[in-house]
């Protein structure tokens, strides 16, 4: 009986051998970055960077393939027509969208990646100021360390100036009610890739406005708790100094969400700074003065930013979602109508700690 069992098992194993398609590592082209652009007349242009083994060399080469089609899946197929091996998307690290395409709405072009079980969730999405194609091609020219340069760039900046946005976060914001997504905005500048700022969205549409890179820190302070980053404050004419974030905490206080909503955002920032001309950092009175000044400068900026969100009727800091989770029988319709006119007050409290090693 046992022996028969063994035979049957063996037979089945052998028969099934042809049932599963293989994806042998060197027989597939692993896509690293893909960019999509609007190509007019309802078509999109997909550009993909794949890594290609270089015979006899330790490092990998990279190649670019392009295709113009109606949707994302078809683009991949067309690209395959030009490659020796199929392109696979299981290790995709960054998806870039051209500005034009983003203005029309990204849902159709993200959806494929949301449904595809092969795609991971630690995948960054970004908008390109201009054409995504140019930026994708730039990847080839950048320094040849292992890894994907665009991804490293985004990852590095997420620690300081960009909100923590990956595919999951984008989907979270895009599907959720009372919350709008944001994505990093990249651009090409002199043979380099640069973060231009944070692109603002209304649902899946890029509204054409963005928060500049320098103010990215402020947005981050407003939307999440984090520990790094720095912000440059202008004291007087031609006199700037940088304060370094040690720890920032944000708390939202939403009252009366179903009738007359009122929002108070409390930000607590622990910061240090090295020097300010004309002030004595050893002196508690001076430190208080600096704190007050910084609170004033930054608080103003923060309020401006929030007002800008309201003017554009977008909610990237998820106030609606917050209100929903704090209110019984939350009336979303009412909130959405009321949102542009809600009094939102940003209360910034800066505490200076540690001020360098020299007095």
């Amino acid at each position: 009986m046992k022996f028969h069992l063994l035979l049957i098992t063996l037979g089945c194993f052998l028969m099934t051998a042809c049932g599963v398609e293989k994806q042998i590592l060197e027989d597939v082209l692993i896509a690293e970055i893909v960019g999509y652009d609007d190509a007019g007349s309802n078509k999109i242009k997909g550009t993909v960077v794949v890594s290609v083994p270089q015979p006899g060399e330790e490092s990998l080469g990279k190649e670019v393939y392009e295709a113009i089609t109606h949707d994302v899946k078809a683009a991949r197929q067309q690209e395959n027509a030009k490659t020796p091996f199929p392109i696979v998307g299981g290790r995709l690290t960054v998806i870039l969208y051209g500005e034009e395409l983003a203005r029309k709405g990204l849902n159709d072009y993200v959806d494929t990646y949301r449904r595809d079980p092969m795609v991971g969730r630690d995948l960054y999405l970004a908008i390109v100021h201009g054409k995504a194609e140019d930026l994708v091609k730039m990847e080839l020219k950048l320094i040849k360390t292992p890894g994907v340069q665009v991804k490293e760039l985004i990852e590095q900046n997420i620690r300081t100036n960009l909100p923590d946005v990956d595919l999951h976060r984008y989907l979270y914001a895009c599907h959720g009610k009372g919350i709008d997504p944001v994505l990093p905005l990249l651009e090409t500048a002199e043979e380099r890739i640069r973060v231009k700022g944070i692109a603002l969205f209304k649902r899946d549409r890029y509204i054409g406005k963005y928060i500049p890179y320098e103010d990215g820190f402020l947005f981050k302070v407003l939307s999440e708790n984090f520990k790094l980053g720095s912000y440059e404050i202008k004291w007087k004419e031609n006199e700037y100094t940088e304060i370094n974030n040690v720890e920032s905490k944000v708390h939202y206080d939403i009252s009366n969400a179903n009738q007359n909503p009122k929002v108070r955002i409390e930000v607590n920032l622990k910061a240090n700074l090295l020097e300010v001309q004309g002030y004595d950092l050893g002196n508690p009175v001076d430190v208080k003065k600096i704190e007050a000044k910084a609170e004033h400068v930054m608080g103003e900026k923060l309020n401006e930013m929030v007002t800008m969100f309201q003017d554009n009727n977008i909610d990237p800091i998820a106030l609606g979602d917050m209100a929903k989770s704090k209110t019984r029988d939350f009336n979303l319709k009412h909130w959405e109508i009321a949102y542009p006119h809600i009094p939102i007050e940003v209360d910034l409290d800066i505490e200076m700690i540690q001020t360098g090693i020299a007095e």
Partner: protein
Amino acid sequence: MKFFKGKEETDATAFQDNSKDFFELLKRFEASNDFLTFQFPNEDGYTISYFKSLVSAQQLHEQVLAVISNQPKKDLQQLKDDIPMEDIKETTDISVIKRLVLAGSIMIRYKKSDGKCLLIPCGQSVKRQTSIPESEYTVAGPKEAFVESLDTNLNLIRNRLPIPELQSKEFRVGSISQTRLVVLYIDGIVNQQLIDTVMQRIDDIDYDTIVDISFVGQMITDNRNSMFPQLIDTERPDHLASVLSEGKIGIMLDGSPHALIGPNTIISFFSSFEDYFQIWNLGTSFRLIRLFAVLFSILSSPLYVAVLTYHYQVIPTDLLPILISSRGVIPFPPILEAIVLEGTIELLREAAVRLPAKVGSTIGIVGGIVIGSAAVEAGFVSNVLLMLVALAALASFTLPIYQISNTIRLIRFPFLFAAQLYGLFGLALCSAFILSHLLKLTSLGSPYLEPLYPLRLPDFKDSLIRLPFSKQIKRPQFLRTEDRIRIRKKAKTQNSQSDIDE
């Protein structure tokens, strides 16, 4: 005992059919050239006959011939009293004569035509000195190993366990070889049912020549088709002595420098006896390392095949370029690459075992360095896999018991095939199949996977981990010993919790 008697009876009757009497037997003995028969001290002295090859010449001269030559001819009964040797038999029973003469006794007859004879045990057998254990060598601990002589081996054990409860039951196995086999256990500790099972199984052995204890092992295990050994084969008397006092049974065979131990759990195959020579926390760590090594050894190359064939997604981004560029030039799919390399390693291992020790070590170097790097240079295998396979081979050498390391060697191949067919899922399937086998397996009737299943938490104290001796108060549960307690003295009444500086 039943077995021996039964066999002997049938043998004796068979013999009687052939040779109706004593002289027929003598004739058959004389057909061999090393069987001597002569008259001593003179033409009408006693008739002495023996196998020259079995008898100690010194004893013959000093204790037998010297006594006979100085005295007038007496009858056999008196002669028996004169000769200063133990256990002299006077008999006409042909079956006894045959057995004892073949065991090295000297046969003395009063007259050449007599059927009655005196049998003086005077055998000598070639013995080896006890030497250092080879397959179970430990740095610390005793350096004695069993030898081929059963009596020496019993001596080694009795010296370690000087109690009357240590009992040995002797059997004879093999219809031709009539090899002596001894079952050792400590009465009052060991489970009686266990002894009955073992005796029953030994009685059931039916084979012509039993040369080594491993024959017995294969014949008395629960599942004779299992790749997993169920009885441990040890060459260390200290090991045997220590498990006997745990309540296990030992089996030894004359002519085999190993003893069998049972029942065992799978974990005991991964624990070296050296674990007990070290402080418990070190011993535990090394055990865990060994367990990890086993898993690594089985799974590393199948995982490589599975991941490279199906799941490129799970490779970390920074590792990806290294893997792709090392695989880029290889003409074979990962499975073939892995089989080629694993096959090479198996070849090397087999060759190194067959060759004499001095040549064997060169084979290791030639194989490891020359063939390995040449294969990589030639683009036959990737250097990542070479590293993995070499590490896996190294990991399998950490196993202290030789039998299980053979199992681990071979079990890799089904895993490789499963990985090729269904990737990671295939590996899970394959391990589930093996688990189903292990769950059903028993060793002398006790479950093989204990203490994992049946789940017995107290038995973890000396399985995956080894707790200090003071914690080993009870004997392992799975042995169902009659006396469960190991440490009689009660733990000192808790010295009122001592505080700092008190």
